């Protein structure tokens, strides 16, 4: 069952992937193995595909480096829950097909190491017998996510969603 990896407020993209481990510094094949190298060195080893990342306020502030969320995607992350997002990180998540859920209550309720099930389309999150409802992403993003990512959408339709 997917587990929750919970982080605090103001987690920046240097925390998620330090600049010195950018793909163009260490190679496309291994940059993701350095995700959270400073903050939580065991993360990249122990994370399993489908695990859920939980952040507090202003998740992903700082550098526009898309390779930070790309490292998470390579490690199999498909959904993130945060109290709020920094804007470039939010766009990058959507563009890579990682769903950015937003909820103060659910973030407060979840604990690091929780075993959960999350339905990515409906936003229904189950922890044991408990049920939480996350708001699904807005239509513009959902349209893009249905094709996989914004890149996939543009490739298929030759235009942006809603255009």
């Amino acid at each position, binding site marked *: 069952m997917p587990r929750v990896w919970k982080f605090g407020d103001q987690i920046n993209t240097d925390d998620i992937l330090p600049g010195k481990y950018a793909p*163009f*510094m260490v190679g496309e094949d291994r940059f993701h193995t350095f995700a959270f190298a400073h903050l939580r060195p065991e993360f990249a080893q122990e994370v399993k595909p489908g695990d859920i990342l939980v952040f507090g306020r202003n998740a992903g*502030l700082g*550098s526009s480096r898309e390779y930070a969320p790309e490292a998470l995607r390579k490690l199999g992350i498909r959904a993130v829950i945060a109290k709020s997002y920094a804007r470039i990180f939010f766009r990058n998540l959507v563009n890579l097909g990682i769903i950015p859920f937003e909820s103060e209550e659910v973030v407060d309720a979840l604990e690091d190491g929780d075993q959960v099930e999350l339905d990515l389309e409906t936003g229904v999150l189950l922890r044991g017998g408990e049920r939480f409802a996350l708001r699904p992403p807005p239509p513009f993003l959902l349209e893009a996510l249905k094709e996989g990512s914004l890149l996939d959408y543009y490739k298929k339709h030759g235009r942006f969603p809603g255009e």
Partner: protein
Amino acid sequence: MGLTLAEKILSQKAGREVRAGELVVVEVDQVMVVDSIAGSFFKRLEYLGATPRYPERVSIVIDHVAPAANLEVAKAQKEIREWGRKHGIRVFDVGRGVCHQVLIEEGLAQPGWIVVGSDSHSTTYGAVGAFGTGMGATDIALAAASGRTWLRVPESVKVTFRGRLPRGVTAKDAALEMVRLLTAEGATYMAVEIHLADGAESLGRGERMTLANLTVEAGAKAGLVVPSGEILDLYQVPGWLYPDPDARYVREVEVDLSTLTPRVSVPFYVDNVAEVSAVRGKRVDQVFIGTCTNGRLEDLRAAAEVLRGRKVAPGVRLLVIPASSQVLEEAARDGTLLTLLEAGATLGTPGCGPCMGRHMGVLAPGEVCVSTSNRNFRGRMGAPDAEIYLASPRVAAASAVAGYIATPEDLAPSQEEAHA
């Protein structure tokens, strides 16, 4: 109800009046790509089966690790040069400088333009009245392929700087004060619209770049300085490029420049801003003067003014990295460079330098750095426990001489001053 500057620019581009909250797809005037994401950019274009729709609207800048620090980077930068030649795309190579400084110098950001860059500090273009915003590799590739991008029209926070800076206080101190007031998330998804009034219009283009640069540290999508003063002399500013007097703002903040004192941003958050007096005496191992925030001629001159007739303290490294080759040439011509070198500074290739902890001044465990850059996040410049204090070039230079965090006023008189 009137329109903000961000609404004005996006309305002009959308061809209809648009308001905060609307989604728009707009033409992009310039797409800026940096070396560190160029590989991802190429891969995404290849996946789309596309090449840049308007090659003249794309610039690639080799600045984030320039010159190459290792084989991976060397290979990536070789690919940039080859790709640029193949597709007729402008490449600014090693030594030309930091992307934002280079684009401004080259006239590739103009008032009323939309400039998207693969670097979060693309807000810097707001200094000249351009809607500059940072994006990731996918958005940047789509902008290059389509010539357009999608944006949510942002709400705006109005920041008014009034009056004149006291001697020894700089635009960097004003910018840090702005981030302190707004906090790291106070302008998330928003534009910061900067008004200069009651003497503050005299701030030059470089100082406006420092202000616009730091707006992203409050989460801003764009940092737009209302054109005035020097900008009106340097650029053709369209008549429509001003906010309406009855525009609606989410929040309005005022900063009185005349009472401002030197500021530092204390690790590990940019909005953790204090007066220098709060951290005075903190031992320093390295001082870094440079970057898109403070690597311009006036910054090097401000540092030289402090360093003239003085020496860097034993055990302290003073790294000076001009923001561009043009800055380097001008600093060489007017003697600024010699003053810095005589004081004990060491000079690096124009570019981003150690700002991202990749080369040219990586910090060891436990080390302390005073930097004129824009981020003091944990591990940003090297070891996770190394500390970065962000400050103005004057405070940085004074700290290099003192060996601890200080202002020029804390230093003993230089030999020249003593003889005067």
